[in-house]
């Protein structure tokens, strides 16, 4: 008699996800291209590319360079705008039975609110919203919202007022002195959970031409290089706020990496840059989780969340 494969389902706040494995924003578009490689309905969810009030055309190229065990990018959130998402991408995703995490961005609190308003009126079927606060704040000398407690709380609070009934996951930047303080500000602003981490800021210079390798000078570092930063960040925030559901991300490539972030405290884990390398990374990681559960005779993935053993140290 064969036993059925163990369930990968997890509870993320009030949401039941089919699997803890998500795709990270900006690494799978709105699913169309990636659907050639993976069945979107089998994912825990797809966090779509961030959307803004009007289309953003993005930064000039070059936008990417490879770095040791990772890459730097400065895309500038090229996207077709929230209206296009609501009219084209969302109906398609829902037809594919995908669990949709909308990701919203803006340069002012007002822009965030306007995007959120459009989601409230036209975004039926969305499971949750990731708030991409790693955007320059035009009202604060272009500092990222996510780099200040005040800006973080202001955006989250305003978006929550617009979308009171949709779970909000602000996506935090690791480029701060005290992540717990920013996390606390996001929660006070009304966040239902937190998503961490966004890319680590970096820069690379071509020594022959003496120019930055990215047209945007600096960019976000992603890939396996940043995974230890993500593990630390998740552990820190989970320790400070053990009841807050966390979406972990940062350099995750396979099932082992997913489990590492879950042990640090993440309930769901998004795979990002690894999708570029291997479009089937999420599918293969899910198979690896099943294998792990069988080897460890586990019935429920919930027990690994925050399960890192520290007491022997």
């Amino acid at each position, binding site marked *: 008699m064969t036993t059925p494969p163990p369930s990968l389902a997890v509870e993320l706040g009030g949401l039941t996800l089919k699997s803890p494995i998500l795709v990270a924003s900006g690494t799978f*578009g709105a699913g169309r291209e*990636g659907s050639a490689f993976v069945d979107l309905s089998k994912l825990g969810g797809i966090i779509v590319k961030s959307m803004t009030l009007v289309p953003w055309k993005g930064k000039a*190229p070059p936008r990417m360079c*490879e770095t040791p*065990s990772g890459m730097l*990018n400065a*895309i500038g959130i090229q996207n077709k705008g929230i209206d296009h998402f609501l009219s084209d991408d969302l109906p398609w995703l829902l037809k594919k039975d995908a669990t949709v995490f909308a990701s919203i961005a803006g340069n002012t609190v007002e822009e965030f609110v306007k995007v959120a308003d459009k989601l409230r009126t036209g975004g039926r079927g969305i499971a949750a919203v990731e708030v991409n606060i790693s955007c320059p704040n035009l009202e604060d000398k272009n500092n990222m919202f996510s780099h200040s407690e005040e800006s973080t709380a202001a955006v989250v609070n305003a978006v929550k007022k617009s979308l009171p009934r949709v779970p909000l996951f602000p996506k935090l930047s690791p480029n701060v002195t005290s992540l717990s303080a920013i996390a606390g500000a996001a929660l006070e602003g009304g966040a239902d959970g937190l998503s961490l981490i966004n890319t680590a800021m970096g820069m690379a210079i071509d020594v022959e031409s003496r120019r930055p390798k990215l047209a945007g000078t600096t960019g976000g570092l992603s890939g396996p290089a940043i995974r230890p930063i993500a593990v630390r960040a998740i552990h820190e925030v989970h320790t400070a706020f053990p009841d807050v559901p966390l979406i972990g991300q940062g350099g995750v490539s396979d099932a082992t990496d997913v489990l590492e972030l879950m042990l640090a405290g993440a309930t769901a884990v998004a795979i990002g*840059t690894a999708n570029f*390398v291997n*479009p089937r990374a999420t599918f293969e990681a899910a198979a690896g989780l099943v294998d792990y559960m069988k080897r460890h005779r586990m019935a429920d993935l919930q027990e690994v969340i925050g399960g890192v053993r520290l007491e022997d140290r």
Partner: protein
Amino acid sequence: MSMGEVLSHKKYGEHYHSLTIVAPEIGEKVKPGQFVNIRCGAGRSNIIRRPFSVFRVHKRGGWASTIEIVFDVQGPGTEYLSHLRGHASVDLLGPLGRGFALPKRRAHCLLVGGGIGAAPLFFLADELRNEGHRVDVILGARSTGLLLNQIDARRVSSICRITTEDGSAGDTGRVTDILVETMEKCETEVIYSCGPHPMLEAVSEIAVERKIPIQVAVEELMGCGYGVCMTCVMPLRKAPPKSSKSGDEDLIHYARSCTEGPVFNGGQVIWDGATGPLEAVQAELAPAGVAVGQHGLEDPPDEHPPPGN
């Protein structure tokens, strides 16, 4: 996504490596101008795949078709590939991208290639000749050793012109120095080009001036190769906005080379010389008489009109 097996590794001239890879699914489907995205190293140090246009295809009945790629060693990725020998496994994604559109009626086609960039033009030349088109070739490089496969360039063409900047083979100078006279002599009706950006820019300019359709294949740095990462973008001119409220959104479209290209209408690309600060590009594009290539943005290359209609 598939695993291929290296059938052979050889060198063209002093600089260029060639890998022939058994990849039946890709070999059966691939069209000239399309590319494959290859993992260049195991493990997690060099994670980003490298794109290579397909240089040649040998179809062998659907079970052992091969594709051939050519490259020169430019960094750790191509260094890795240069050490692969027979039976090595290669992790390939492809065929990817939109290839060259072939003329819908018989036409005189001029293929202009620079350096290693000429690679996809050899596959294209074979396909064009199979369909009965006339093929002429201009092949250029800095010096003899950097010309890709002169012998085949001569074999596939009615007229073949060679240029080198140092005069070590053919005419001394650049491909664009002899482009106009070659076009006139060959009664060229469509141009296909691949090579460095400054060359593509110059070729496109001449083609647009003479109202000859120009398709260029670009080779950009890519993160994913299948349309999600938005890193391999080329700035294209959009048609001038119909409404008066023209923000910067209205004039430039960053098109993904991997899915919207890598073949573009050369007259529509805003080449490197123009991509300075955005304001400069805006200023250049703002006048009402903006030169918008032969086709609107929405025209995919496969709807390329037959030349001379």
